[in-house]
Each structure stands twice: as C-alpha cells, then as structure tokens.
C-alpha cells in the first residue's frame, strides 16, 4: 500500500504513450498482462489500448487485437507497397492447409477426427510442420477411452491470420448452423457397441499429477 501512495500512477494520456511505445518497439504481439508488467505501478493497460486503437483507426499502421494479445500492424490495404518486406514462406501442402483449417474450426480436435473428416490418414510430418510453424499446439487430452491428445490453434496462428478470436474465423457461424462442425460419428454397423459413450463419463482420469 505504501508503494501506491508513494508512486502515483501516471495520467491516462501518459499511460497511452507508454503502451504505444512498448507495442511499437515489439515485433511480436503483447498481452495485457505483459504490458501491465512493464508499466509503472498502478497503470491499467486496457483503457490505454482502447484509446490507442481509436487513435490509429484508418492510419497506415493500426492497432489490432490478435487472440489474447495486441500489436501494431500495417494496414492491409497497403500490402502492395510492401513487396520488399514480404517474407517468402514455404508453401504449405494441401494436406497441411486442410489440417490447419480442421484444427481451427473443430478445435479441440484429435488426430482420429482429422482423419475422419479428411477421409485419409495424416501423413507423417503434417502435424509436425504445423507445430513447427507454431500454428497449432497440444490441447487437453480428450476424456474418452484412450485419452487421445487434441490439437488447438495458437496465438501465433491468430497473429498470422489477423484473427481477434476463433469466433472470427470466416464462415464459422454458417458452418455451425449447417451442422457441419458437429462431430457426427458414422452410423457404422461394424463399430464397437454403443457402450463407448456410456463409459466415457465414467472414465476416470489418471492419478492427479502434481504441478
């Protein structure tokens, strides 16, 4: 408490300048928490971010929310000027692109589900490549028999595709409305008895790991 009284938080306009400088200096997006940690005691990054976003609206550089983090990015309508900055990226295979989309739209999703949707088994390296790009990562294990690992998209994915949240994925609502994002298991007669699902709920996770 004595700290608070000794060092009063700077005025909002000053906090805004600080956030502006921090974000401008960084190439990678910064979360509210990261900003907060670097601002003087008592500052609140949130209103500063809101003001900044407004201030940069329509400029050549814009403040964007990307997943959980914020970053300045050039306006996309100016892309044609930037040819010299363009980084030549390895072209993703069709399998990798589709797998990425499936992870984004169906997350958290297991390998078996990806294969079920694509109707073909995942070749080696596809998941690895997407993880290397830091576009997907491991999510929680699915609490179904076998406890398969799941995959989810990362903050870097949001940054790369300029998404504020997964909800902003193009066409998500329509896909959901059309029932195309539901996991509908095949009405397979050869499949295991329905007991599967019943056991799901009873499945007890392994002994708790200390963290």
């Amino acid at each position, binding site marked *: 408490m004595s700290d608070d009284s000794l060092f009063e938080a700077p005025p909002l306009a000053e906090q805004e300048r600080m956030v502006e400088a921090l974000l*401008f*200096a*960084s*190439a*990678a997006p910064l979360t509210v928490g990261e900003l907060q940690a670097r601002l003087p005691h008592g500052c609140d990054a949130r209103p500063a971010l809101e003001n900044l976003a407004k201030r940069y609206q329509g400029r050549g550089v814009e403040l964007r929310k990307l997943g959980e983090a914020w*970053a*300045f*990015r*050039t*306006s*996309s309508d100016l*892309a044609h000027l*930037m040819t010299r*900055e*363009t*980084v030549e*990226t390895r072209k*993703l295979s*069709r*399998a990798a*692109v*589709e797998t*990425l*989309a*499936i992870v*984004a*739209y169906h997350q958290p999703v297991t390998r078996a589900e990806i294969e079920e*949707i*694509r*109707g*073909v*088994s995942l070749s080696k390296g596809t998941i*690895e490549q997407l*993880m*290397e790009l830091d576009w997907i*990562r*491991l999510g929680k294990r699915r609490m179904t028999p076998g406890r398969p690992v799941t995959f989810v998209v990362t903050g870097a994915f949001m*940054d*790369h*595709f*300029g*998404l504020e949240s997964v909800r902003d*994925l*193009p*066409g998500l609502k329509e*896909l959901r409305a*059309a029932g*195309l994002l539901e996991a*509908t298991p*095949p*009405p*397979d*007669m050869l499949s295991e008895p329905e007991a599967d699902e019943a056991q799901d709920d009873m499945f007890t996770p392994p002994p708790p790991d200390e963290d």
Partner: protein
Amino acid sequence: MDSQDDAFEEGPARDEVADRLAAEALIVDVDGFEGPLDLLLTMARTQKVDLAKISVLALARQYLAFVEKARELRIELAADYLVMAAWLAFLKSRLLLPPDPTEEVSAEDLAAHLAFQLERLEAMRKSAARLMARDQLGRDVFARGEPQVQGRVRRVTYTATLLDLMQGYARLRTKDEFRPFVMDREGVLTMEEALERLRPLIGHTGDWTDLRAFLPDGWEEDPKRRRSATAATFAATLELAKHGKLELRQSDTFAPIQIRRRA
C-alpha cells in the same frame, strides 16, 4: 431420399458408358487425390447438384466403375480405395433392396452419413481456402520491421520448444542401447531387494553372524555381483540398525562385519 427413386432408374446403358468415361478420366490422376473421400467428392461434383441432395447410389455406381476400370488397366489402387469400394458395393446392394426392418442402421442412414462427410469435407476445403485468402502476416500485413531495443540490461535466457522436448524424449526412448527402466539389474542387487531379503532372516540371528552369510545364493562367484550384493546388504543392515532391528560390529578395519538381532 433420392436413392429410393434411383432404384427404379437402374440401368440405361448410356449411364454406364458415361461412368466409364468419367472413371477413365479420373484414373489418369489417381495420385492427385487425397484418398477415397476426396475422389468421391470430385465425382460428386460432376452430379452438379447441391451436395446435400447428392444421389449416393449414383455416386456408388460411379466409384465402382472407377475401381473396375482401374483393375482393367492394371492400375494398383491403394488399400483404402478398395476398402471404400467394398463398402460402397455393400451400400449399393442395401440401397437397392427393400429395407430390412431387422437392421438397426438403415441404408438411408449410411448414405446420409456419406453425403454428410462429403459436405463436411467440401466445407472444410472452402474454409481452408478462405483462411488462406485472409490477410497474412508477412504477406499482406507487416509487423514492426525494426524492433527496438534500447536497454543495456542483458539477460541470457534459454529456450526450447515442445517439439525439441518430444523429439529429445523420443530419441532417448528409441536409441538402441536403451533398456527399459529397472530391467537392467542382472549384476546389481538393489538396497530394496537386500532389505526384503534380510528382514525375514534377522529373526533367526541370535548370535553374531558374518554379513557374507546373508548374500543371496549365486552372488559370491562373480566379483562384480559380489560387490554389489555386499554393498546392498551392508546398506540394508545399516537401515535396519537405524530402526533398532539389529546390531553391527567390526573388530578391526577391513575385518569381517558381523550382525545379530537386537534383543
């Protein structure tokens, strides 16, 4: 369902010919398909209807014609294409027969699910294309080109990725010299084993007895095993002495160690 109607339209030879021609065209490019579902989707598109209204029966016929043609041309199809063919042949026969009330899953359900799979795959394809068409970082949108560092505080931090971690572990677990944990014990007597051996034995040691008498049978010959057994047994006696179960004595440096039960 459409498939019902199709059952009565079975057969004009012209369709078969068209199917065969279509099959031939696809066969040329069979490597270009990502599995049977992808191939089916391409075939479905030739029906030029909404995927939700696709005739699964016609599709099954088309696919089977494709596989047959491939056989004629002696083109080796991957196993999953043949599995799909077998399944579609089964589905086709079920769709053509009057519904069997004893079957739990109707042919229509199976056909509907296949149509759903195709629709979902198509939807994901489109979504993937829309995703890739978004403004991408480093292509359409750019980050700060000259990240600024003014500080003079230099801190070294070490980093590794999850991939490094998993690959590191995989490397360990698969290297040739790897032996499963705890199995590699032929020449080693652990203290726990020695303890377990000693506990029932000390009940009978009213008199001072040489420690060597407690080594397990067959461990005296090989010097390596003898050393390990002696060390483990000695450590075990210390542990038991600590708990007040027995006493130890040694008359001189390097003299035999003797133990007895504590009265």
